[in-house]
């Protein structure tokens, strides 16, 4: 029993560790609110020339599926093609925040589409995680971790 309690305490520390890790990030000053957040273009750079990215003007499948404004251009140097996308209508202010809380942020969908487009064009596939065949067991700190990781698979700089 003692060992179990100690184990649980150690696990709780791990869960808190994640929360603190994220909190430490929030202390970096640059996190000022971006007034253009909801209307910014999200971009990825694909290591392929523009004529392979959109042959005959056809958008890659993941992007064709989402309701987004899309533009692209050749990237500087040898970097391939920059693809940009953003929601057609952007919901500003409280409306946008509420939509995001309901998990309906159109930017999330577009971010995922951009990432998948890049991976498909570069590798021919979108890599799946071993998390799909879990070896883990549910724990309280695991829940804390889930919250802290949030929608990690949909995040990322775009």
């Amino acid at each position: 029993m003692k060992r179990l309690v100690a184990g649980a305490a150690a696990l709780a520390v791990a869960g808190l560790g994640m929360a603190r890790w994220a909190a430490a990030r929030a202390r970096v000053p640059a996190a000022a609110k971006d007034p253009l957040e909801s209307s910014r273009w999200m971009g990825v750079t694909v290591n392929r020339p523009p004529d392979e990215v959109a042959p005959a003007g056809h958008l890659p499948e993941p992007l064709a599926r989402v309701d987004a404004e899309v533009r692209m251009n050749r990237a500087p140097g040898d970097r391939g093609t920059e693809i940009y996308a953003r929601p057609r209508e952007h919901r500003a202010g409280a409306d946008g925040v509420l939509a995001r809380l309901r998990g309906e942020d159109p930017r999330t969908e577009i971010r995922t589409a951009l990432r998948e487009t890049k991976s498909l064009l570069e590798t021919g596939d979108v890599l799946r995680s071993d998390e799909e065949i879990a070896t883990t067991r549910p724990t309280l700190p695991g829940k804390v971790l889930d919250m802290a990781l949030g929608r990690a698979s949909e995040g990322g700089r775009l």
Partner: protein
Amino acid sequence: MKALCWQGVNELSVEQVPDPAILNAQDAIVKVTASTTCGSDLHLLGGYIPAMRAGDVIGHEFIGEIVDVGPEVSRHRPGDRVVVCSIIGCGRCWACRHDEWSLCENSNPNPGVTDLMWGGTTAGIFGYSHAMGGFRGSHAEYIRVPFVDYNAFTVPEGVSDLDALFASDAAPTGWMGAELGGVRPGDVVAVWGCGAVGQMAARAAMLLGAERVVAIDRYPERLAMTARHVGCEVIDYTSTDVTAELRERTGGRGPDVCVEAVGMEADSTGIQRVYDGVKQQLRLEQDRPIAVREAIHACRKGGSVFVLGVFAGFVDKFPLGALMNKGLTLRGAQQHGQRYIPKLLDRIAKGDLKTSYLATHTMTLDEGPKGYDMFKHKKDGCVRAVFRPWA
């Protein structure tokens, strides 16, 4: 199948878990024949890399035999004896094409975490938390290897399992520190840490032409092993002032290249250890950068410092003044193994690079928790505990 799982801070156990499966057409399943502990696992075990779940399979430095391949695998087939890079690359993004494999843009299915923390997504790593993609580790009977054409390398005949094993992680990491640290013929190089990574960095510096190489640690058996197998000079930091000693050995200049192979749990004899230890425990500081500070201080003006040791977040008392005013170059990276593994296997085959001596303790997978206890506390001269799941 059987696997060694992380259960909580400093808690490991051997469990039955579902077999891995081919999830993408470019995957393979590898039957693991040898898998070693690495200093990076200690950071996971200690709870310093927090994105772990109870039941996660750990381990990332391994060799094995391919037993199954997805329909789009072309360079490997069942039966191949392979060493697999600990870092997962896609082979085709801009970073992989420029040989910066640990910056791969398509191999981490959880890109949000590292992006939030560091302002950029990094590659997937086997058995290295959900922040690095949630891939299962290699301390198991089988493992799934994504993009296997790019991440697995056939082991030449005549190279033993225990020699090839360290071409997965320790040897390419050390090589990268020396090469990207800019070691040139005639240089004096200092390496902090005489674990497997530090020893490989010291050996790489010698093979790249360094005239003198000095390695630093506190464990007499590690210092003796480094002197004997790497063939370089050593310093025991508990009995001398490292910076003063390095000055005296280098005509007052300091080393041209300093390689840090210690990481976020660095130790010291002085007040720094107490300061950083307390701050780390209170989570006011995430990492203890004691060896990095010392390397920056000791480095010659205009020299370079390469950080191989793993750090996760923020550090205190970073000597930015020394870095700026002495005109230093500071770099770091998770290893770009795919760039070095073929060359390293050649050198191992030719006998230029010895690695198997690092495997001080070989055991079964069932002995995993004991192996980590020995490795963590450096018991019985343990440098690396190697698990052989099928032995």
